[in-house]
């Protein structure tokens, strides 16, 4: 049995007293942003009911935030069951806000760390209830208990995430809109409210774009150099780009000085693994280039670490809940490494196989109109992919051509990357 938020959609009027009360309790009256009220069908389209959801952190049994956090900044308070974030440990990477399907952790710009609902643990521990449930004027939000095997709530904006949220939602008395016959049926289109603004954009995440392009390229180049020693990367180029990628991703953190903490959660965080394998790969890689006669001896483990790195990069992004079913993306790191490796290693079979996988995924995305990239870029990317796979050029040119195509595709990847928050899911549900 665990303390849980109880929510009654019939009683919630979206008054936001819960959110205001949270700010009063936890932030000297200023908004914490921890609790948000989302509305399904805010335009009151006649075909649909209008319903609200007041949501903060659900203090899940299997908290996606804590599992994804590379810095082991999350912990569970055993007395209250609250999932708590230690701001002293947080490195401000924001990854928890990407993986939480409830959009619970919020980035605090002023302090460079994440913040989130604490379940008002001190109040709870003292036998009271959280400020939000205590403040609800209509009795829509309350504190209750749930069993550990309780089914996940099914409601607008929620999905089945298998996290065991401490949230119970009453079934509304009526499913449809209020019966109102007054207005002659007008020819109505679907609800047209805009999607809530994006948390991730290409311009906000460009440092990650650089990192996820540079690292696979270095892995492929170094790996190719293991097979064909003369083609191994020059030390300055390898170390320079490696340092650049590391520096950019470190500066991207809210707390760069705590970057070392990023490898503290290898057990469950793909992000932690990504950082660890990056370091191992770069160290071994530099060694294999700098120390004579170690191209294979150090290069091979470096390549293995690099492959693990590529798998970790893809793992980081796979863990993000998406609005639509997750499918493999043509710009993922593993096929990119394979394709580039084939070029450097002079193994056209590998290049063409990886290129085909990418081409098919890309063409399918294009054909099903998922692509949001301007058309000239799309055509260029396809042409570059084809050119890179045609074994007609010197490997250096083929590598450059392929890389340029991957930059465009990876940019498109970030452009389309948006964690699915309850608000976004509600908007999508109302539209369809």
């Amino acid at each position, binding site marked *: 049995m665990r303390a849980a938020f109880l929510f009654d959609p019939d009683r919630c*009027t*979206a008054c936001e007293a819960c959110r*205001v009360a949270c700010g009063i309790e936890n932030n000297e009256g200023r*908004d914490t942003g921890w609790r948000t009220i989302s509305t399904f069908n805010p335009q009151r389209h006649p075909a649909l009911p209008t319903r609200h959801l007041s949501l903060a952190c659900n203090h899940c049994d299997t908290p996606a935030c804590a599992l994804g956090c590379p810095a082991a900044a999350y912990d569970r308070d055993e007395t209250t069951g609250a999932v708590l974030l230690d701001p002293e440990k947080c490195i401000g990477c924001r990854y928890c806000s990407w993986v939480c399907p409830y959009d619970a952790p919020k980035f605090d710009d002023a302090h460079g760390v994440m913040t989130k609902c604490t379940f008002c643990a001190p109040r709870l521990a003292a036998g009271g209830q959280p400020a939000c449930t205590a*403040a*609800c004027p209509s009795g829509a939000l309350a504190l209750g208990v749930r069993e550990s095997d309780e089914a996940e709530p099914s409601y607008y904006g929620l999905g089945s995430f298998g996290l065991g949220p401490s949230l119970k939602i009453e079934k509304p008395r009526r499913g449809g809109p*209020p*019966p109102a016959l*007054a207005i002659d049926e007008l020819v109505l289109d679907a609800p047209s409210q*805009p999607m809530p603004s994006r948390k991730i954009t290409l311009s906000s995440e460009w440092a990650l774009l650089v990192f996820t392009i540079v690292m696979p390229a270095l892995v492929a180049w170094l790996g190719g150099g293991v097979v064909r020693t003369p083609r191994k990367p020059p030390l300055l180029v390898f170390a320079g780009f490696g340092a650049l990628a590391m520096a950019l991703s470190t500066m991207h953190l809210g707390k760069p000085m705590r970057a070392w903490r990023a490898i503290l959660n290898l057990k469950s965080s793909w992000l932690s693994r990504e950082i660890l394998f990056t370091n191992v790969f770069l160290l071994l890689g530099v060694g294999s280039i700098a120390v004579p006669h170690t191209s294979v001896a150090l290069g091979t483990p470096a390549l293995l670490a690099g492959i693990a790195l590529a798998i970790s990069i893809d793992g980081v992004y796979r863990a993000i809940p998406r609005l639509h079913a997750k499918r493999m993306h043509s710009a993922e790191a593993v096929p990119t490494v394979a394709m580039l490796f084939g070029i450097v290693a002079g193994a056209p079979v590998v290049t063409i196989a990886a290129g085909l996988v990418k081409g098919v995924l890309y063409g399918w995305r294009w054909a099903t109109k998922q692509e949001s990239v301007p058309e000239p870029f799309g055509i260029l990317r396809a042409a570059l992919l084809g050119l890179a796979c045609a074994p007609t050029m010197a490997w250096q040119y083929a590598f450059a051509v392929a890389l340029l195509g991957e930059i465009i595709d990876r940019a498109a990847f970030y452009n389309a990357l948006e964690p699915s928050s309850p608000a976004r899911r509600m908007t999508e549900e109302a539209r369809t």
Partner: protein
Amino acid sequence: MNVTVENNRVVKIEGVPSNLATPEGPCIKGLAYVERAHSPQRIIRPMRRGPDGQFRPMAWESAIELIASRLEEARARLGPQSVLYYSGSGTKGLLNAAGMAFWRLFGGCTTTYGDLCWPAGLEATRLTLGENTHNAPWDLANAKLIVLWGKNSAETNIHQMLHVDRALEAGAKLVVIDPRRTETAERADLLLQLRPGTDGALALGVGHLLVRDGHADRAFIDTHVLGFDDYAALVAEWTPERSAEVTGLRVEQINELAMLFATMAPVTVSPGFGMQRFTNSGQAMRAMLALLAITGNVGKPGAGWSYANLQTQVFSHVKDPTDFYPPETPDGIVRVSISTAKLGRNMLAQQDPPLAFAWVERGNPIPQNPETRVVVEAFRRLEFRVVVDEFMTDTAREADVVLPAKNFFEQTDVIGAYWHPYLQIRPKIVEPPPEVKPETEIYRELGRHLGIDEEKLAAALPGPSNESIEAWLTAKLEKFGITLDQLRRGPVLSPDFREVAFDDLRFATPSGRIELRSEEARTRWGLDELPTFREAEERPKRGGRFPLHMLTPNTKNRIHSQFGNLETIRRMAPEPYVAMHPADARSRNLSEGDRARIWNERGLLTLPVRFDYGLRPGCISVTNGFWLVEGGAVNVLSMGRETDMGYGAAFHDNAVEVSRA
């Protein structure tokens, strides 16, 4: 509410479960007082407007001296009635009475009659039931049919929703009658989106069906209702077809509502304030009351008319609405000659003497009274203006001197309510900022400067200390056997409290019965004795210049023009917008987010458009309370016009056109 104070700051506000009407938490306006009490925007010292229009701090001594000299000058030249005393309801405490006590000592003044809020409904209720009282709020849970008629409780009376929900859980039905599909309407079993201002025609149509099909409660009518036969003759003409034609509803919807009235009991009808802000709405409210009377839904648990509960208005002999009517015989001291609804025009029209000076407290008439342009003009024509307020409102910006107002944490007072039946204390728990004085002290100092006898001042106004305020309040409470200590322990039910209003079936009407036919409707208001329907004076006409009906409802985010300046509220409602049905918007080439001009002969608003499929087409909606300086003061479009009874303001008789900006 329970308020926690640390270091002279309000840090927490919580609900009081022992108030059975509001057992859960406060609304967001209540919570927002954590910010409001100490807002950096607050006016904390007297301010004087310079020739450049900028306000600069001034010392209290010079502020009082300046005001006193201007008052003396106006009194000497034109007489005391050249001073307009305009007061709103503020925080509703007993100390509100101090203002008028002072102006009487000054020698008199001119003041307003009527009220912006709810008079047509109050008067309709008074004419029909004799007084404004209703069942305890929590008794609503006993209703089997709840009709929220023009009321959006989910936003404007959120605590009522708990009781509505309890009734619905127990199987009751909810009908919402509103041109808008409001948050409240989301829960409705039947939503009737009638044409604004036709509530009377709907009530008469339902009455027709109830009488025709034999659903009138004859036994109840014979003993307790006056004028049924005349009423029956009136509704005989209101066939559902005619009612549907007028209201824009469908015949089957009117049938359905009548069926619910006929088959469900007990029935509670809870009308809103917005629907009685038309030029025909007093009569409409009477027609709605008649439905309860003829079905015997009065004086029983779960039944009745839940409009205004003045059970706590025990401190004066005359209750609302008659206490804000002009006196039948003027006393020659206080001239009650300005209709609140027509504030601007009546201020300009005053003669013998004309107005020269205005004192405004607890109110913000410029954006909130109808016809803002004329109200502004009337204030600008005056020679001198003093505004007492916590914030730089639109009205304060027009003042020559702005005096800081205390807030309700800074002076002890006793308050009643207009929905729940509790008397409550509001103890002083915070020291005001050093240069903020309560109104009682402002008046005392002004009185001294004006040479008013110290003893008379002391008799009229409580002293500055908390002890003397408490002594003054104790004296007021004495006759009810209630002490301040008792109030400090929690809310106390008013001595006039009755769980079920009219349970003795005695009505303070001339006949002692529920009056469907009211002589006073004719003698006092020149209306038909029966609740007949006529169209509102101003309404959109098909093909006319102003084909859209402008609605200016309240929102959960503010109490009229209050609270919108606070960060707590701005985060939720940063700017005004106009809600339009997409069909009305698209036919004017407007999309979501476009800027639209909303205009009529009185004024113009330019606002972004938001689509609302839940609006009755032909209606647009802008919530009232945004300020002129925010570009959202809706009353630049409304007309200064009285309701058919009660001297209310007919804000919703308002036709406009919208075009692309």
